[in-house]
């Protein structure tokens, strides 16, 4: 493979960027402090700025910042906007409509008045920012009899474990922070820390509603962790690796070829993985506490479940990070079963470097985001059209239906992985 076809990854890009900036700074310092001038000792600083260890360290900082801004700001706002717009349309109304022309200060309000632009008939993307600003202004209240230390620890646990997911979650071949051999296990381990934080939050607020919500969350999340992991085991029989990028690449074999376009064989197109997909999808909806399984915060029964007593930005951050978990969950569904960033590929016959040139029809990131948003829309669609499931029914579904189904998926997947090639390549 020639070099220019290899996608750059996030760390190399940010190292390149940081290297350039530090080189310019260092050249400037060396220029204003020539040898023999009174500020000659600055030359040491100039040489030190381009040291490899400093560049590497700053490159990691920049890469982490890029990932956090991308995931926890841009994607979070987009997902919340999609959800609010979509369920408003399901309920036959317009939904949020705050736009840039609604801002009540100088350039925007002046321009809107002058051009007779409607001030509250936009796309509504800024509504979530307005809500966030409102929450920042509010007071952080700690209940009088709450266990203060634990009450303040719980959001930290939830938020940090959710952000840890994005250390290993790839958005494309190169758009990933750390590409480690066990990244899938890392993501699932980071997923499983949040129930502890939820229980601590529910117990420490000293409120019967939040305690009931926390206990329900514990029962539900622990019950659905098991089918989730078992369904992942069925995928591992096919991929043979725990690396997320390796799992995506194992789905690259062509399923069908229409002219020059070949469609990759995603995991969902095989029988055992389809069973696994059903189990995983239901379990991930339950893990995210979306509506058919949202008894931990059933608004009609418990005020707001385990986050009743939180207020101000502490509430905002715990509430908002649920969408981040939804993003991670939809991304996991896409990576494990829907082929990740692999879409139809246009194969050119021009031989470059001995192999036919395969060009993806859309860039990898766009494929990935399209699929993630589609999965997310399906989740939103489900959660705004079905009623809530009772707690005993939830546990029945988890323990009596999903776990046997996941075990069946493992058995069939193991059978096909062992004897599939003998039976004519069935997978």
């Amino acid at each position, binding site marked *: 493979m020639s070099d220019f076809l290899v996608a750059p990854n996030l760390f190399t890009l940010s190292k390149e960027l940081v290297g350039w900036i530090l080189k310019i700074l260092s050249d400037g310092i060396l220029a204003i402090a020539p040898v023999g001038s009174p500020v000659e000792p600055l030359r040491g600083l100039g040489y030190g700025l381009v040291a490899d260890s400093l560049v590497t360290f700053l490159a990691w900082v920049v890469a982490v910042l890029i990932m956090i801004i991308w995931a926890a700001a841009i994607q979070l706002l987009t997902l919340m906007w999609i959800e609010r717009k979509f369920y408003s349309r399901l309920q036959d109304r317009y939904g949020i409509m705050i736009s840039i022309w609604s801002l009540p200060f100088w350039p925007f309000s002046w321009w809107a008045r002058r051009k007779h632009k409607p001030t509250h008939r936009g796309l509504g993307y800024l509504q979530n920012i307005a809500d966030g600003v409102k929450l920042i202004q509010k007071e952080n209240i700690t209940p009088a009899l709450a266990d203060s230390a634990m009450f303040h620890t719980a959001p930290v646990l939830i938020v940090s474990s959710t952000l840890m997911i994005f250390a290993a979650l790839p958005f494309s071949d190169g758009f990933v922070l750390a590409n480690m051999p*066990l990244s899938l*296990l890392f993501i699932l381990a980071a997923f499983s820390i949040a129930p502890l934080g939820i229980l601590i939050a529910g117990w420490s607020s000293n*409120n019967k509603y939040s305690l009931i919500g926390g206990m329900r969350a514990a029962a539900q999340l622990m019950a659905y962790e098991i089918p989730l992991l078992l369904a992942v085991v069925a995928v591992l029989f096919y991929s043979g690796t725990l690396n997320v990028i390796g799992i995506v690449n194992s789905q690259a074999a062509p399923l069908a070829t229409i002219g020059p376009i070949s469609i990759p064989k995603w995991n969902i197109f095989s029988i055992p993985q389809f069973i696994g997909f059903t189990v995983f999808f239901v379990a991930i909806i339950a893990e995210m506490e979306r509506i058919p399984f949202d008894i931990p915060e059933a608004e009609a029964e418990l005020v707001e479940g385990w986050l009743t007593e939180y207020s101000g930005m502490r509430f905002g951050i715990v509430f908002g990070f649920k969408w981040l978990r939804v993003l991670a969950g939809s991304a996991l569904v896409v990576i494990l079963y829907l082929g990740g960033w692999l879409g139809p590929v246009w194969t050119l016959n021009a031989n470059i470097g001995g192999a036919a040139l395969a060009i993806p029809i859309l860039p990898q990131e766009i494929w990935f985001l399209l699929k993630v948003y589609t999965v997310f829309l399906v989740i939103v669609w489900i959660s705004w059209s079905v009623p809530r499931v009772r707690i005993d029914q939830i546990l029945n579904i988890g323990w009596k239906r999903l776990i046997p189904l996941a075990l069946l998926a493992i058995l069939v997947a193991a059978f096909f992985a062992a004897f599939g090639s003998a039976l004519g390549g069935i997978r």
Partner: protein
Amino acid sequence: MAVDWELAAFLILAVIEIVGSIMVVTSKKLVHAVFWLATTLITIGGVYLLFRAEFVFLIQILVYAGAVPVLFVFGIILTRRKIMEEVTPGEVPQEVPPGGPREGNP
């Protein structure tokens, strides 16, 4: 001067672990003890990471972070804590509301 970063990481983890394990047995509240137990177990996972045993580290977090909430639930069920203004049976309320004792429902 070369700094042995692994030694520094190990020392930090060891201090957290020792403090955490002492707190497990000295905490008055059972639920606090469970929280410190989780801290101890996760720092043990960090020590595994220093041994280059990533798989054991991740399994440690998956299994113990999954098991600790169970302990937490038992801690909540088996210990008593006042939730809101609930009065334990046999206990006289300390504060008399202004305007004398309430009438009607106790």
